[in-house]
């Protein structure tokens, strides 16, 4: 077993043990904090598939996070107000069922990722970054102007959505759901990276011309990865909206897209648990240093600077040693 695997297992054990302890010690706020960390981890795990394996630096991944959030918000809003979502040509009603909301969030964000990918993946490098940023801003300003669903003020959902057999209002139970989603996404990501598709995607990042010469289409590989990546981030958006029982245009903001990238860089690009470590560190620093100073981002920025300059493998690289890149 490698040091990285041991470290990953330790992180996972921490994600199980800490909220359980908080539950037993009756500290629901700590569980909520852990839930936030796990959901942000899930969003960054989605991005890590495109960025870590495929080398796609998307500065618009908050689009999918926002779409997932609004999928939850819109469906729950119509359910709580007993208003159908649409009546013609057929009746669609709102829902408070998490599985249905997650399905809607995943499908909507995957479709958005497919369309954005079809247009943006024809470019590369800084042009790709700029196009994804432009899509992010388009969705952001659209959400601001969408007065039917709160416009700039966003939209509140009064009761958390339900999951069969669970009381999602109990923090530890909702946390368990989020952690299960994260573990599934990590398992899927790991299996995909080792599959022929993942290897070809990795190869397309390294030498696209050679990938074409062995009969593979780099554009198609990247499009599939980008779509799956968007779907996972969309699911995280739906969970985030449920955690806060609130959605707003900030879920589409480019700053959030930037934070997802920062989580991955801090944890370790293309390391399976890199986004998890980065997101957890972010939430911990935001809470503790943010308690001392409103300018806590300065310290976080210094941490990022240190990692970029001295620890290219991120925190996992520093702890578990240098692994082969993108393995």
């Amino acid at each position, binding site marked *: 077993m490698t040091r990285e695997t041991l470290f990953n297992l330790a992180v996972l054990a921490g994600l199980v043990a800490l909220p359980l302890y908080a539950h037993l010690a009756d500290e629901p706020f700590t569980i909520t904090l852990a839930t936030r960390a796990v959901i942000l981890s899930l969003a960054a795990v989605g991005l890590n598939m495109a960025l870590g394996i495929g080398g796609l630096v998307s500065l618009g991944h908050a689009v999918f996070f926002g779409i997932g959030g609004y999928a939850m918000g819109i469906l729950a809003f119509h359910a709580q107000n007993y208003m159908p979502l649409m009546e013609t040509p057929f009746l669609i009603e709102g829902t408070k069922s998490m599985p249905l909301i997650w399905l809607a969030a995943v499908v909507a964000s995957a479709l958005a990722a497919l369309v954005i990918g079809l247009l943006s993946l024809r470019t590369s490098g800084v042009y790709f970054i700029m196009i994804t940023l432009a899509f992010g801003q388009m969705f952001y300003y659209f959400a601001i102007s969408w007065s039917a669903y709160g416009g700039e003020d966003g939209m509140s959902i009064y009761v958390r959505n339900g999951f069969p057999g669970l009381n999602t209002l109990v923090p530890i139970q909702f946390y368990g759901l989020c952690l299960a989603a994260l573990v599934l996404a990590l398992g899927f990501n790991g299996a995909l990276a080792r599959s022929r598709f993942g290897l070809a995607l*990795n*190869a397309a990042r390294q030498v696209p011309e050679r990938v074409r010469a*062995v009969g593979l289409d780099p554009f198609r590989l990247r499009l599939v990865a980008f779509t799956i990546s968007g779907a996972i981030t969309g699911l995280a958006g739906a969970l985030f909206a449920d955690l806060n029982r609130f959605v707003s245009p900030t879920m589409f903001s480019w700053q959030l897209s930037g934070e997802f990238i920062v989580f991955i860089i801090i944890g370790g690009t293309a390391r399976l648990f890199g986004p998890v470590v980065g997101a957890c560190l972010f939430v911990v620093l935001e809470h503790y240093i943010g308690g001392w100073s409103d300018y806590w981002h300065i310290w976080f920025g210094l941490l990022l600077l240190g990692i970029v300059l001295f620890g290219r493998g991120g925190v996992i690289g520093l702890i578990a040693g240098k692994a082969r890149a993108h393995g």
Partner: protein
Amino acid sequence: MSALLQVEGLKATYGASQALFGVDLQVASGEVVALMGRNGMGKTTTVKCICRLLRAEGHISFDSKDLRRLPAHRAARLGIGLVPEGRRCFADLTVQENLTAAARPGPWDMGKVGTLFPRLSERKTQVARSLSGGEQQMLAIGRALMTNPRLLILDEATEGLAPLIRQEIWDAVGQLKRETGMAILIIDKSLKELTQVSDRAVILNRGRTAWTGVLDDLSADLAQRYLGV
């Protein structure tokens, strides 16, 4: 033998600079053809055009299918396997992963590649960038074979390698010719080895086909003029 690959009047440019002015060549099924010429005469450019990695004018067909409108990956899927100049393996992937990424259905699999190049079997968990030049070349050939091609194109497959490794590569090419009946288009500068392994040769000079025939028939005068040997 019917022509598997047919190239006629091939012209190609790099920006404003024309590299090919009319290349003609054919490779039949099971035939080994040497593509020769001095440096800068258009050998690699011809290969890039055949593999659709470079736009070209003229006729290129593979198995009677016009390649000119196909993207590179579709051309490769028809059965053209390229071992590029400079190897260019997927450096971050292991030997096994390099081969898996390229695999397409057919008789060539990991085991068969390992039999052809036992060194690759011994190093299957090793990252490609840590292999020696010769092993990387074997991996590049193995990767092309994993696509199960009907035409294998080897571009300077023995360039810059130690004599022992070069011999291993030539032995493998000879084995492929004897045992698989695969068509091979091979670019190299070793006249002696090419004479032994090839059925025919096509010599390029200044972006045009200058000579076609069996290398045994190449006169010393022409060899000096076109190949500098």
